[in-house]
């Protein structure tokens, strides 16, 4: 290829690139999805309302303005069991700084009779919510257990961790981000 033709092609490609950069710029910041509820990083955490063992109803919106860790789990799931002591440990450590942990049991695929003994065995002090109809599991598109959603004070999901057990450092790093 002739040098002049080759350099003209470079110039055309670079110029077209620049035009596209400015044409596709997102001046209204509409590309960020913070206003749509979806179980994905950057989106608003989908709203749910679930019951606890003692009949209280807990809604995610009750905690708007608070950093929330939503952990979906089941008693039969080995990584869920493995991460529970660490989850309880960091909850105890960070609750005074405004962290709330919501342990959502996927009750629709769990043995309901096993939940209370599990709670006792692992000395869990954070609220355990019962997803009896699978409402939260569906809303959060649960595909693997455990799955954790780190929700900031503005209600936006900052991190999603699929699978486990989560290590202490992973929990601390993400909690530090959401309690800011």
């Amino acid at each position: 290829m002739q040098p002049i033709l080759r350099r003209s092609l470079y110039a055309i490609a670079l110029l077209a690139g620049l035009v596209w950069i400015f044409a596709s710029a997102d001046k209204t910041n509409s590309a960020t999805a913070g206003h749509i509820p979806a179980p994905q990083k950057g989106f608003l955490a989908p709203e749910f309302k679930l019951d606890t063992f003692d009949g209280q109803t807990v809604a995610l919106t009750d905690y708007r303005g608070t950093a929330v860790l939503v952990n979906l789990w089941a008693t039969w799931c080995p990584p869920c069991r493995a991460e529970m002591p660490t989850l309880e440990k960091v909850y105890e450590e960070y609750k005074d700084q405004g962290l709330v942990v919501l342990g959502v049991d996927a009750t629709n695929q769990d043995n309901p009779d096993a939940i209370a003994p599990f709670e006792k065995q692992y000395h869990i002090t954070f609220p355990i919510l019962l997803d009896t109809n699978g409402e939260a599991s569906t809303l959060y598109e649960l595909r693997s257990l455990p799955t954790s959603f780190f929700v900031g004070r503005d209600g936006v999901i900052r991190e999603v961790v699929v699978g486990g057990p989560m290590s202490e450092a992973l929990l601390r790093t993400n909690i530090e981000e959401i309690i800011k």
Partner: protein
Amino acid sequence: MNGLSFFQNVFAPPRDLILIVLAAWLGLTLSERRATRHRVNLDSLSNILLVGVSGFILGGRILYALENLASFAQSPSSIFSINTSLFDPWGGLAIAALSALAYGQHIHLPFWKSLDALTPFFAALAIGIACSHLAAGTAFGKETNVPWAIDQWGALRHPTQIYEIIASLLILALILIQKPNPTAGYEFLLFVALTSASRLLIEGLRGDSTLILGGLRAAQITAWFILFATFIGWEYKIRQEHREE
């Protein structure tokens, strides 16, 4: 359940990483076949990849731990955790490049010819990464009404992950059909130019871009500069060749 949902269920995170591993394996096979064309020793090529991959894994984890030292100081054993989230991919990539470069120099591997031989590996890896984006629903598109939009994260969106897969498949095909070129580095620079051009184009349709300077997309600007650098690199190589002749 449609084909896309089935795919996303089968390869839901963390299983999406299987797609990257499969692509890396395919890429390695293709690169090994190309090694003889570029007169690069097959064992040396495998070794440099091993060094690069090890550098990526170890470097990504160590850099992440250093960036979050306070968290790791309280639970040092977390450095050995199986959580893939405890990872700095860009840091890992930098360490991989540096360690592969150092090893390549140590065993006197020809720099540009080795990059040419490794190009099918990089191109196949790009396909795997695009497939993993589709499986995980990350790198998603902005809202649109085009007839081929997909329903994702509460809106109809550009299927940017599918654009990414098509672009990377085309790039791999283009690399594979290239006739031998006497200029060392030609295939690698072609791959870099095409990849940055496709990123520049597709990023403009993404819904999760990092925005800077009043709405410009950071990844597009980076891709533009890489494209610019590739053109300069290409011109430099041509001039060097003329001088040698």
